[in-house]
């Protein structure tokens, strides 16, 4: 897939690429004329030259230089520009693709891993398309043109013999280049380890201070800086070796040319001008030979990246759209039929044989320990996870047969983690709506009991939520997440997945009040919580343990049963909270 993308891109921009190749080719042919002109110029002196002749040579040099620079610049820029356009298109393709993949994929891959595709692989491919192609073009044209000039106009044996040491240059580049790149990555890593340790230490500075641990921290930091030092010096040694080897090889070549070329000049096999021109040609060969090495490295590096991108683009969502989507019925209960669900890659099921009917317009409370399956159930309902066939129906229709967009449109969901984007509060609340409508935002904020808080902020709804919502307290964040769900006034099902844990009792009451009003309008509510006070509106309460329903009934019934619910009730009403 990755390679096909590249091929398609070449095809689409064929004309531009052909023009660029032509421009670079012609520019290199012009470039190799320069030493030839200088050679003829010098020979002309021995044959006798007029000031007019000198003018002409200088003019030729100037005109050819200008032509070469313009053509070469055009070719180089065109190739580089196209590569950068491809890079942008590829980033878009990746993002678009990620949006299609489901929760399981994002559990398997950390954000950091996925980002590294954007940060490393995409630029590596760009580099192959820009630097790789550009350097190949330059190197091939210049190398061929130079050899042509030296063999045709100067001398074959001089060319061959002088070239021998230079041919080692690509070998050196291919051998040392990857080592240098690898080592500079190691240096970067040790630097970020040092920065990471600093971050860790400064973030726990209170702990460090109260434990009197400053000395230990300095020792740990010193270890990190020592490793930065060692790695950097290793890189310096590699770099300096590399930087010395290339001029050494070209120096040997040059010395050979000096002696052998001089001898040929003395024996009149070549002219003095040709000798001078040859020394210039020789220095022109160093660059393309280095580029041959570079190109090999770049392509090797990028082919690995292309492969990774290919794998990524081939990942398919496991939760698929139905072939012939049905409409979600407007009315009817949510029914779980003998629902058993096992996470992909897990051994034991997270939910077992769960059967339950949630009548339209009722409120279901779900309580249970961490890991009992509460969130799994809500995530199945929005098809963030895929339930087995016919295991979950709404109004008699299997949710697997409904388009995901339709299903999710009908549900207002408040997730457990209360993730917010680092944009304005208003933007976050209006997230599910196509247009930001201030009146709607206010209304939703009011229902989530965050309106008053937002109004005290200097910038109101335009206040930007800090990274990962840091400027807001946990409770405020949850309330914004609730407002974001409640702005979907048309949603028939409202799910709160443990979303009231960080709000204080008073706020909880207010939010529950708003939920009750929605309930009165016929909405179905599903609320999961650790805290029983959040479930006081529930018509029915289900107690989950290890994926199974262990208790089910009205709150009063459960209280009388002396089970888990009653036990939890006892703990929570005694250990009540101050919430200053």
């Amino acid at each position, binding site marked *: 897939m990755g390679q096909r993308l590249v091929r398609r891109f070449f095809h689409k921009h064929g004309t531009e690429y052909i023009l660029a190749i032509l421009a670079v080719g012609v520019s290199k042919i012009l470039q190799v004329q320069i030493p030839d002109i200088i050679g003829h110029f010098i020979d002309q002196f021995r044959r006798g030259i007029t000031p007019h002749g000198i003018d002409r040579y200088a003019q030729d040099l100037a005109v050819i230089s200008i032509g070469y620079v313009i053509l070469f610049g055009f070719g180089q820029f065109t190739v580089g520009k196209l590569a950068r356009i491809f890079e942008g298109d590829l980033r878009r393709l990746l993002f678009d693709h990620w949006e299609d993949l489901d929760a399981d994929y*994002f559990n398997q891959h950390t954000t950091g891993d996925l980002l590294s595709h954007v940060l490393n692989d995409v630029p590596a491919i760009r580099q192959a398309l820009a630097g790789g192609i550009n350097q190949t073009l330059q190197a091939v044209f210049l190398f061929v043109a130079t050899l042509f000039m030296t063999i045709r106009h100067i001398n074959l044996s001089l060319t061959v013999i002088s070239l021998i040491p230079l041919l080692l240059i690509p070998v050196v580049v291919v051998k040392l280049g990857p080592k240098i790149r690898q080592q500079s990555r190691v240096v970067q890593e040790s630097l970020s380890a040092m920065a990471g340790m600093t971050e860790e230490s400064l973030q726990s500075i209170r702990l460090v201070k109260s434990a009197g641990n400053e000395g230990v921290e300095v020792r740990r930091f010193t270890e990190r800086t020592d490793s930065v030092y060692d790695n950097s010096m290793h890189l310096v040694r590699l770099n300096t070796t590399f930087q010395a080897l290339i001029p050494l090889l070209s120096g040997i070549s040059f010395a050979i040319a000096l002696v052998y070329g001089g001898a040929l000049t003395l024996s009149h096999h070549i002219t003095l001008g040709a000798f001078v021109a040859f020394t210039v040609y020789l220095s022109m060969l160093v660059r393309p030979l280095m580029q041959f090495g570079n190109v090999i490295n770049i392509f090797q590096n990028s082919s690995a990246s292309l492969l990774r991108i290919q794998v990524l683009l081939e990942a398919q969502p496991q939760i698929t759209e139905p072939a012939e989507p049905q409409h979600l019925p407007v009315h009817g209960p949510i029914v779980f039929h003998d629902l058993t669900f096992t996470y992909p890659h897990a051994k034991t099921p997270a939910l077992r044989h769960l059967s339950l009917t949630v009548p339209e317009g009722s409120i279901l409370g779900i309580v249970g320990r961490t890991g009992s399956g509460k969130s799994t159930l809500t995530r199945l309902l929005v098809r963030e996870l895929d339930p087995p066939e016919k295991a979950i129906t709404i109004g008699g229709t299997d949710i697997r047969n409904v388009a995901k967009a339709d299903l999710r449109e009908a549900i207002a969901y408040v997730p457990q983690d209360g993730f917010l984007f680092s944009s304005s509060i208003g933007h976050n609340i209006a997230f599910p709506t196509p247009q930001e409508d201030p009146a709607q935002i206010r209304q939703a904020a009011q229902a989530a009991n965050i309106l008053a808080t937002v109004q005290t902020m200097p910038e109101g709804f335009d206040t930007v939520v800090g990274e990962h919502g840091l400027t807001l307290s946990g409770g405020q964040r949850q309330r914004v997440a609730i407002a974001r769900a409640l702005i979907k006034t048309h949603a028939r099902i409202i799910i709160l997945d443990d979303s009231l844990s960080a709000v204080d009792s008073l706020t909880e009451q207010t939010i529950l009040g708003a939920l009750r009003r929605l309930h009165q309008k016929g909405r179905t509510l599903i609320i999961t919580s650790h805290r029983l006070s959040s479930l006081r509106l529930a018509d029915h309460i289900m107690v989950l343990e290890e994926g199974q329903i262990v208790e089910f009934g009205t709150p009063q019934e459960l209280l009388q049963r002396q089970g888990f619910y009653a036990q939890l009730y006892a703990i929570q009403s005694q250990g009540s909270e101050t919430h200053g």
Partner: protein
Amino acid sequence: MANVPQPGTSASRPSSATIRELLVYARPYTRLFAGVVALVIVYNLTQVIQPYLVKVAIDRYLLIPHGRLEPLIAIGATYLGITLVGLLANLWQTRVIASAGQQVVRQLRIDLFSHIESLSMSFFESHDTGRLITNVASDTTRISQFFTQFLLSVIRDGLTIVLVMGAMFLLNWKLALLSALVIPIIVVISAIFRPRLHKIYNTTRSRQSRLIGFIAENLTGMRIIQVFHQEDKQLEAFNHLNIPFQMANVNEFRWDVFFNRSFDLLGNLAVAFMAWAGGMAVFHHTIKIGVLYAFISYIQQFFEPINSLTQNWNTLQSSMISAERISAVLATPPAIKDPPRPITPPAITGRIDFDHVSFAYERSRPILDDITCHILPGQFIGICGETGAGKSTLISLLARFYDVTSGTISIDHIDIRDVRQADLHRWVAVVQQEVNLYSGSVADNIRLFRSDVSDAQVVHAARLTGAHAFISQLPQGYNTPLTPHGSNLSAGQRQLLAFARTIVLNPSILVLDEATANLDAMSEIAVQQGLIEVAKNRTTIVIAHRLSTIRAADCIYVLDKGRIVESGTHDQLVAHHGAYAEMLQKSQLTANAEGF
């Protein structure tokens, strides 16, 4: 959001004071530096001699009829020898200067880090952690570039220009003067391009970091996007960042090509010019052909060093900005200093006295007002009050994160200002609500990387606090690696770890600063059981989040607006019908509301 380093353009002129401060760090390497200069001179001389050798070969041996081969071989051998010497000199000096630069920056980093660690809490409350990390990591790197790049470039490139000019003047002063015309042109072109390139580069980087930030955030929040099926909307937002970044990339490349080709063109035109001017000189027999060759070679040698010098001018500026930032941190003295003659009692019992303690960050707004209380060794003390009543401040004063504004705090009748902070912190341990984990093993996290804490002590502490049970359940037990965000541990487990960490230090006074506030009811019970063990034989102060936590305290202090308004045991306070009783009632009311 991110601290984008300010480009050199906005920088003040590098002040001589800052340069002097930097050079202090380089002083141990003065001699080494002299050696480096010598090596640079050797290298540069070899570079200048090379075209001269060819000139000699042409004029002396190739231009004469029936020249001999032997001198040519000698010249070839000399050429090779000189190249080798030059390369070795260059290799050596680069390594030496890199090593010196790296050592300087290593020392600077250690000094800076130790200094930051020695500063008082008030400093950390007014300084952004991210900034400080930038100081330690990137600012020091930029300073090392001052040594490894800027100084080297000034010496090497400056010397190259001087030597090339010198060689040209020796050969022919008129032509040399003409060639020197190239220098101002190169400088002007650089001066025009550099700031522009810099600005374009910064635009690209800032657009990139915005785009990457966007992608990172959206990947993290992908389920939200999907659950609310806003994929199209987010793709639109992505395009709004991606396209400008793509355009900035193309633009950056355009200017890059433009700049490099301009230099290229200038170089070739200089050769054409030299061919003309030198050609005329040869025509008038002012110089020989070999000299013309040398001039054509030399004029190309101007470009690289001048380009590098202008580039390094930016390095100098950014190093200076970094140096100024670092000096500012280094110049900050710790607000709290150890006494010149500290009292060092062999052991303490754990008696604490607050006598008329007041504290204010700003004079006008006192946080604590005339607090007096006496805590006996081994007592269990509870403190409660509304948010902002001053509970945590009281603890910060006890740990001497801040000094009292007036009054005294003493432990075993010794004013805490008369002991070393290190001793004080050994006596008083504070467990906070937020548990910071280090990347390292569980054991490392308990012993806080101290080499003097044995494995047995670690396990013992974990057993005492009840953390051992869950630790032995972990895949690698005490060697299980943890990460700072510790997603592999629950909040309750993290808190148990924090207790174990505290017990390893074996403090006489234990303070829990709302340590269990983040836990759910079931985890809290587990933690509280650990606490009972830990509190034995120690003076324990608990700042309460849930009143049930301090029900059993020997004495409960109720704080309000910085003052103690009530004190006594739970039963006394309930009977008193004051603030405590009211708080208790309020909390039970909400729990029992609506038939619950």
